[in-house]
């Protein structure tokens, strides 16, 4: 799949923002007044920047309001609704906490639940697609959730919790790639896709176009597979293993937390780029790829 920068930015930043919301809703860290303002501002900035970035790749933004209408079948629609509800719920949490030093009953925990739900709906946009076998596995939502929870804990200043979550993320990434490779390899051949396998070995002689087109640009993207193994190790180290080691093995402090965050973010972006660039769509089989 074509790794559109807008989608990479969107999923990384908004995941981080909603992850931070999750912790803030639970009262972690337990802050009020100006400090609470700063934390909520970061969470709002990240999640809104992410959501805004996601609209950049829309071809026809003027119809955007309709995107909230199909929650009964569409994960993308559910995501939009969940995101807006979460942002709204956290206004109810943030305002009393910042200005009144008080807590609205239950709205914090409810907000946290919705924050996770938002990340889950994002992940299901990808995990639901049977056409991309690598994504169509239960570990895809787990990976998204761990990114949000781990990154969010890091931003919330919970070094030890973040360390354990990023360690879990490391293991999940490894498992997800392993299962993904198996699933992708079992995708079939051009003969299976065309239903011509009984005639012998099938190869593409001529494609249905002499020029670029949307389907090829969007879904038969193959650049990511060349350096996949190396990039995986880089993403794994930066997003998971290294920050986990720093957070779990060194005494907590601003410098180590900042270093862990910088590494994690870089790794998360590389990992997300790879998530798209590596993914093989079944339509590639019709193109002999």
């Amino acid at each position, binding site marked *: *799949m074509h790794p559109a920068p807008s989608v990479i930015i969107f999923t990384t930043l908004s995941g981080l923002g909603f992850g931070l919301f999750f912790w803030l809703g639970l009262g972690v860290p337990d802050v009020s007044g100006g400090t609470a303002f700063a934390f909520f501002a970061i969470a709002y900035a990240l999640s809104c920047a992410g959501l805004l970035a996601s609209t950049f*790749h*829309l*071809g*026809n*933004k003027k*119809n*955007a309001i*309709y*995107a*909230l*209408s*199909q929650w*009964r*079948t*569409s*994960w*993308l*629609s559910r995501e*939009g609704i969940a995101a807006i509800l979460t942002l709204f719920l956290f206004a109810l949490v943030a305002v009393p906490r910042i200005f009144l030093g008080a807590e609205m009953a239950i709205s914090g925990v409810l907000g946290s639940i919705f924050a996770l739900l938002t990340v889950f709906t994002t992940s299901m*946009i990808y995990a*639901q*697609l*049977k*056409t*991309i076998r690598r994504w169509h596995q239960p570990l895809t939502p787990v990976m998204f959730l761990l990114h949000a929870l781990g990154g969010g804990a890091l931003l919330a200043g919970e070094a030890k919790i973040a360390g354990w979550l990023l360690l879990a993320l490391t293991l999940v990434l490894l498992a997800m790639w392993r299962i993904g490779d198996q699933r992708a390899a079992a995708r079939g051949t*051009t*003969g*299976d*896709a*065309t*239903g*011509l396998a*009984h*005639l*012998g*070995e*099938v*190869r*593409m*002689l*001529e*494609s*249905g*176009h002499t*020029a*670029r*087109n*949307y*389907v090829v640009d*969007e*879904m038969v993207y193959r650049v990511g597979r060349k350096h996949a193994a190396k990039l995986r190790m880089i993403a794994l180290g930066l997003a998971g293993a290294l920050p986990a080691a720093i957070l779990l093995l060194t005494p907590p402090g601003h410098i180590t937390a900042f270093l862990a965050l910088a590494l994690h973010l870089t790794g998360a972006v590389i990992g997300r780029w790879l998530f798209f660039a590596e993914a093989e*769509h*079944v*339509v590639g089989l*019709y193109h002999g790829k």
Partner: protein
Amino acid sequence: MTALPEKTDKKLGLVIDLDTCVGCHGCVTACKGWNTQNYGAPLSDTDPYGADPGGTFLNRVFSYEAQAEGQPAQTVHMPRSCLHCDDAPCVTVCPTGASYKRSEDGIVLVNEDRCIGCGLCAWACPYGAREMDRDAGIMKKCTLCVDRIYNENLPEEDRVPACVRTCPSGARHFGDLGDPDSDVSKLVADRGGYDLMPDLGTKPVNKYLPPRAKDTLNTQPLEVIADEPQGFLGWLDKALEKL
């Protein structure tokens, strides 16, 4: 609404004969012509006379070569357009309700006044049947020529999809695949028509008729007659080698 209808009264669709199709791309051109001048945004061409041309099509013809061990190869031309799937994943993923399947005849359409151009439906389609128009920013797909087949302003023989009407080899058939007594259903039953990638559970309405079995000729694939050139050519070969 992007919920799929529980059942459709008819299942209008195409039956494409891979035995007869000669790969002339006539259907591609007819489809582009009709659908650029009629329903919805035109199918744009980007940089058509420049160095990097591209464009939107609702139907494309691919050519494949199939070869069994020790047999001569055979060419199969495979046109592909939307299969108007019964269980269309492109419809259910759509966040706006722009993509829908009609309960009266099963045609899958895009309401261009709702589409946001997110492209998710194209990701959900296994067959590459949806293309985003780069000019309009709207998802385009085969309409089964919905503006021809019911169009009483056209002479009756023209009330079929443009691609079917134009096909010079009669490889494309249009009809109701939900009615077991229709001509298309009988054709599918006779010839063993099949679904593309049935394991993905999309339940396509369009069917493909497999190429008929070929005569078995006694010709073998070409053998290498002489590895080493003889006579004059042999001398030339050696002389050139020495240079």
